[in-house]
């Protein structure tokens, strides 16, 4: 029988503050309060990661709980993009950044006291690696390395071209005495 992680409810209060409700025991406004309220969560990296992520960035990031599903979503999104389109202001495209090493993305885990998980930037769609030195420490979000996709071939515009010139001969032939 698989040990199902306890569910946590992520919420926002009237003042816009973030809170996490670990069942019916109350609402926590930070990790310390949450762990005090529900110490059993320490054994469950996913709700821990969700709580950490929620307190840190709310809905700006989403914890990647299923790396395979994420990879499939990412690839599907990439496939929808025009590979020859140049970067364009205001248009968010995965292709402008590249492709992560999907194999490196793991489900949330606690190791040596560190909570490590991967989160997707819900605005950009790219994955980040998040490391919490301790469960109550401020998490560090680092973009995952992304391998650039082949650059679209673009013919230079006329004004980008240097006109005819000659560099086959020295412009100033020098004569030694």
């Amino acid at each position: 029988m698989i040990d199902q992680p306890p569910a946590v409810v992520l919420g926002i209060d009237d003042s816009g503050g973030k809170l996490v409700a670990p069942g019916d025991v109350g609402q926590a406004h930070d990790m310390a309060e949450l762990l005090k309220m529900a110490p059993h969560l320490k054994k469950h990296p996913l709700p821990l990661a969700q709580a950490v992520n929620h307190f840190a960035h709310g809905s700006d990031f989403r914890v990647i709980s299923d790396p395979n599903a994420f990879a499939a979503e990412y690839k599907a999104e990439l496939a929808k993009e025009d590979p020859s389109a140049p970067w364009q202001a205001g248009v968010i495209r995965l292709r402008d950044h590249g492709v992560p090493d999907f194999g490196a993305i793991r489900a949330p885990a606690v190791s040596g006291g560190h909570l490590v998980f991967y989160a997707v930037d819900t605005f950009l769609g790219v994955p980040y690696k998040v490391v919490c030195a301790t469960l109550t420490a401020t998490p560090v979000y680092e973009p995952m390395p992304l391998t650039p996709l082949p650059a679209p071939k673009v013919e230079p515009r006329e004004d980008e071209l240097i006109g005819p010139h000659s560099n086959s001969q020295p412009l100033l032939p020098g004569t030694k005495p």
Partner: protein
Amino acid sequence: MPLDTLTDQQRAFVSQHLSKGLFSGKQNKATVAAYEAYVAEEAKFRELAAALPREDQETVALIQRLRPIMDQKNAGDFAKATAGMTQLVKDGEARRTQIQQAKQGLVDELDKLSVAEWAAPDKVRAMQGEWQKASEALTPPLPSGKQLSDARKAIAMLDWMVDDVQQEARGKKQEVQNQILNLIDPPYAGPEALKTLAGLRQQANEAMAPPYPTGARFEAASKAIEAFNTATQQEANRIAGRRQALQEALAKLAVPAWADQKAAETMNASRQAATNALAPAYPSPAQVTTAEQAINALTQAIQQETARVAKRRTDLQQRLAGLSDPAGADPDDLKAMKAERDKATDALKDEFPTPANFQAAEAAIGALEGLVRQAKQIGGVSDKYGAGSDTAKQTKGAFKSFRAVLGNVEVNDKLIADAQKALEDRVRELAEKQNALNAAKAMPEGTPEQKRRKKQATEKAEKECDDAGAAKTKAEAYLKAAQGQKNLTDALAGGPLSGSSDQKFKDATAATFIKGFTENPTLAKSAVTAATTAKFPDTIAQGWPTVRDAVGNGLKAKDGTVCTVPGACESYGENLLKMGGNVGGDYFARLPDYLDSGEQFKPDPFGPTPSTWGELARQRTTGVAGALLKDDGSIDMTSDGAKKTVGAMLYNPSVVNIPTPALTGQLLKSLKELEDPQASTILKGVTAPTDPGAQGLVRRSVGKGGTDAVDAKDTRTSVLAAMLKPLDQGPVGSCFATAPARRMRETQPMDAMRSYAEIATKGTYKAPGASTAVPAVTNIPPNEDPIMRSWEYSLATATARQGNTIEKSQFTGAMAPGLDQMRPIVGGPDNAWNGKKAALANAISNAFTFTYDPTLTVTDSNDGSSSQGRYVLKLKAGDKAITTQDQFSDAIAEVSIAALGFGGGSDQANRIKALTKQPAFLNAVCPGKYKPWELASGGFTDQATKTLFGNGLQVKPILAKASGSPAPTEGQRTTQVLTGMLNQFSGKGDHMITMNTQGIHGFNALPNDPSLAELKGATPQETAQKVQEKLVAKGQALKDTDLTADRAAYLFDQELTKAIAGEKNKGGKSDPALVTMLETAQREKRPTRAMKPAQLDAAVKEALTPYNDAIAGKDSDAWKKKEEDAGRPVTPQKLQEKLDALKKAYAEQTENGVKSNLMRDMAAPEFVIADTNWGSGLNHTFFVIAPDPTTGEPKLWEKTDPPGSMAPAGKKWVDTQWESVE
């Protein structure tokens, strides 16, 4: 009835021979019938015998044959008698036929002959006698033999006689006809004479027309021939007389002494033509005509030449009279002017001066004009730069120095060409003398005599060498002075050195240039040309001594290497001066060391020239960056390699030949910035990237291939190379991000460098105002600096994300309290509801996102005004934009129903759907004026600026969108923009402040540009007054300025000359017909009278519009072909649209060119208010406020340096809302 035909006698006779009565018996009847037959035959014979000539023997013989027959008849043997008689009749008839035939033959012969009536009368009579004889002999019906014989004789005689007279007549006629044939028209005969002679010839011919003319005709022919000869002689006499008259007239027409060479040649040619035509004793009519025409031409030429000379004298006298002594001229100059004036007056004293007189007068007047012009130019310079200025002193000194060499001579292109030729001759002579000297030195000296000869030859050759050397030096000095005088005179005719132009250099700069014309006239001309449009003319003057000397000594390197190719040094020097003028600062500081190094003789120090400007910039900056880096990552600008490479970037001929002045300027600026110790610290911290994105960016930066390894040196080079480039808005970019990025690059270069370093090392970018880093954007267009552009794009990305976070925070903050409206539907205890509400608020936060759309128009419901650009709320599911209240209500209901776990068709779901449309709910979740579906307009520039510089910055309005009725004019609005900015930035020391012209552009104000200093007042009122005085009033004065004809022509020529050079420099695409069109337009449309700036603008447009339209036609055709070749059909409408667009663009280009020149030459006030972000390695563009010289109205311009060209930004720019982010 028988016997009826018989006479009684016959009856009686026959009765004798009847047996039984006359009518009885059968026998009687036969006898009677036989008798009757006989009688009939006998009657025939009798008739024949009567007709035949009796004298003929043949007739006699026939009659004699009657006897036997008669006997038989009488014997009653009628049958035999009848038979005999019948034969006799037959023979008689034969005889008769014979005679008739003979007669007819003679008659025919006679009919063929006629008496030659034209013959002499006695012969006519003789012929008539013979004819008569023959005729008479043939008169009887049956002439006798004798008659026939007579007739035959007469006919023979007649025939002989006719033949005789005919022969005689033919001979005589031939004789006359020969005479007629000799009646030849004389070649000198005129038309009338020819007509007469032709008539006489015709008379003679007509007289001889019959085969055998009569005597009268012979007489008439003789008379006509005689008359012909007489007429011929008379014509000869007439022609001789005409010839004599023409010769006498010609003798009187002498070529006047005042005729110039060309006229004299023409006259002599006419004279010779007349002489030649009159050479024959009897000239032909054509020759007479030629002679007459030549004499007329000669007469006319003499008259014209005389008139021309008189007019030329008058003109020169008037020209001379117009050359008064300029006020304030130097006494020496006045003395020289008097001398030339006296020379001219003396040369023109004769009524008709000779060519030599004119030459002397023209030379003197030309010299005088030159002196007057020089004096006026000196006066103009003195007025402009001050009488005691160095410029005025140098100008006077320069002209005096030229005069010392040239004398009072007017220098023109021909004189310079002659001087050039003379110098070439002297150089060649010197070379020959040097060869001769070398040959003398090589002579043998074995014997005393050989020694003596060698010594003698060597001494002679040395002397000749010295003389040739001195002659060459003199020729060089003459040419240099001539070029100097010409170039200086031209430079003082218009432009910044000229008194007629308001454009002005600093005194020291102008003085340096003026003196330069005495040092290197060609290079000085280039220096002034470059300085006229340069942003930093003083830098050119500062570099002048170095460049002048370098060019003068063949760019000599320390090891003695020199350039000996004619013109190459000057061309290089010109490029250096241009670059210095565009780059400014201490551009020339490193030049002496560079030239000493000899690197100037090494081409392409950064490799072969690539095809694009972007790649060229990459090549040059990575080359320099690599040379500046030490192994530990620190910067060393003092190493030989660094000096050499920086020198190459600044000065190498290959580099300045394909100049990138903005890049070079940035390089110099960056080198100073990189003196900051932080720079080395940052670079030392740069390591080889492990991030694949960063690796890719570095690879591209240093020009490596797709999988090449990159190390720390590469990475540092890429960072440093980015620092060496100007940060401008790229072809694919975002002004919203570029503006703050450029601001940071310009004002906090080390922070920018850190960003570059982060991207190159880690492949991420953490903006100061953002909560987390973003992965660097690696989709960078080719030919762009990958590190720099990645920073700009990554900043834009971070800004978008930050904007989303901020907008969403506000959205969630507004939504959360209002969600209590749903509690009655959800139900449950308070604590349960609070939990559900918090979760619902989070679900709503998760469900939506915000993106910025710069193209959306937002209309203000209060005043109806509109603005562009705002954030848009989107439902992530389906990426659906929420732009209406209903869409918002539906989206909130959808998200809420799902988050609360209600079934889609449940009662709660329906109630929520109804609730979210209720005003109470909407008011609760959208407090105040907050409408998530219609967010207020706002710029993205401010968000980007905050993201980069921190969220403490605020948007501050400078000027609201133009409004009111009537709407303000462009000039009024531009003035408001300027005063608004001056007031907004009053007292602030920032170099740059980010600006936003709503819905159009994000850029950076330059609140402390030196040009604005004179407008800054202590109070807004004082500032407004200054703006009014220095911008508005000045503009009005500019438009009303009367440009002198010379100044207008100078400005006109600038555009036309530029267009001609542009067309000529198109290489194989140059069109000679268009060049001719432009040259004709320049010649024919050049202003010749004073005019206002607007009139000059119109004149240039009139001259250039045909050319502009022609090239628009060619370009649109080329575009069509290119499109069609690429498989894109072009409709006639599309082609017309393209043509119209090109025509408009070229017309605007012309107008901008004219106005740029006017503004420069009129020194129109220019107030640089902002940096546009637009530029490249070649130039950069600023926003400048200045009056339009043709209307006087203030305008916002885009000024691009180099070459300082102006283009109006357009009214929409000043009409929009202006705001700052500070």
